[in-house]
């Protein structure tokens, strides 16, 4: 009999979620161990800051533990965690931005991620995604979060709007602007950086 490792993994996560919902902290800790790299990756993509990403991961799991009984299981646990993480990141970024506006040391320098700026990178086959990741990180936070949630993680406009506390129309506008900005950075001057992706 052939077993599907993905299905087995999902079944194991479902079992842990059920146990956590009945108050089993050890089961929830095991869920954290199995998913924290994924959650951290999303937090980093959303905040583009190591310290913020750490805070977002901790806050997300605290919220998840408090709200585990609200997880109905009609979506995957990972998708539920993405939404909690997106919401926690939006809250934290807003708070931090208010604190940082006065401080010049946090003014981000524009990042030139084009291939011409790093000619040695063009020779490496895997460099495209690295360049893209850096270009995403350099997007303004409001555009970055929508591009990451929609184009990288595949969340719906409605879910994104709800998690970020904006309207669906605003989410669509931000996505449009984010993609355009990304395209301009990666394919600057009509294809000069066309090998970036």
């Amino acid at each position, binding site marked *: 009999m052939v077993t599907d490792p993905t299905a087995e993994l999902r079944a194991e996560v479902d079992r842990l979620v059920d146990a956590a919902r009945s108050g089993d*902290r050890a089961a*929830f*800790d095991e869920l*954290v*161990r199995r998913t*924290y*790299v*994924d959650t*951290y*990756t999303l937090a*980093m*993509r959303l905040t583009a800051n*190591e310290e913020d*990403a*750490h805070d977002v*991961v*901790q806050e997300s*799991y*605290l919220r998840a*533990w408090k709200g585990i009984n609200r997880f109905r299981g009609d979506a995957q646990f990972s998708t539920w965690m993405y939404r909690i993480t997106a919401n926690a990141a939006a809250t934290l970024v807003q708070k931090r931005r208010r604190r940082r506006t006065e401080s010049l040391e946090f003014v981000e320098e524009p990042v030139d991620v084009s291939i011409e700026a790093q000619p040695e990178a063009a020779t490496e086959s895997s460099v*495209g*995604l690295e360049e*893209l*990741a850096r270009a*995403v990180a350099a997007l303004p936070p409001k555009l970055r979060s929508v*591009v990451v949630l929609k*184009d*990288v*993680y*595949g969340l719906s406009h409605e879910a994104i709007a709800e998690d970020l506390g904006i309207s669906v129309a605003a989410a*669509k506008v931000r*996505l*449009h*602007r984010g*993609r*355009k900005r*990304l*395209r301009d950075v*990666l*394919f600057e001057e009509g*294809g000069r950086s*066309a090998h970036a*992706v």
Partner: protein
Amino acid sequence: MRCEEVARQLPQTVEGTPVDLAMQTHIESCLRCQAELARYRRMLRALQQLRTRFLEPSPSLLAQTLAALEEAGERQAVRSLLSGRRLAYAGAIGGAALATAGTAAALIVARSRRRAAVA
């Protein structure tokens, strides 16, 4: 339709959202816009690939996260304990007040009965 108008709409149509006939006709006959559409599609495919490119967190993250959960659990337990004690204190005070009131009422009734008997 002009290339500039098509370029403005491409970011939202690149996922396969239906486009109007004028735009479709223009793209079919314009190499520049076809190239632009191809760039957006390439960019979206690459963005989707980022989903499985995991970033390595610092080794302390897991331990810190589990410790934060532990601490939150303890705080919750202390809060429950305190609110339980508060309830117990409130119950005891309420009980004592009721007992005092009951005793006072009994004394008043007894005194008024004695007076009635003497009269």
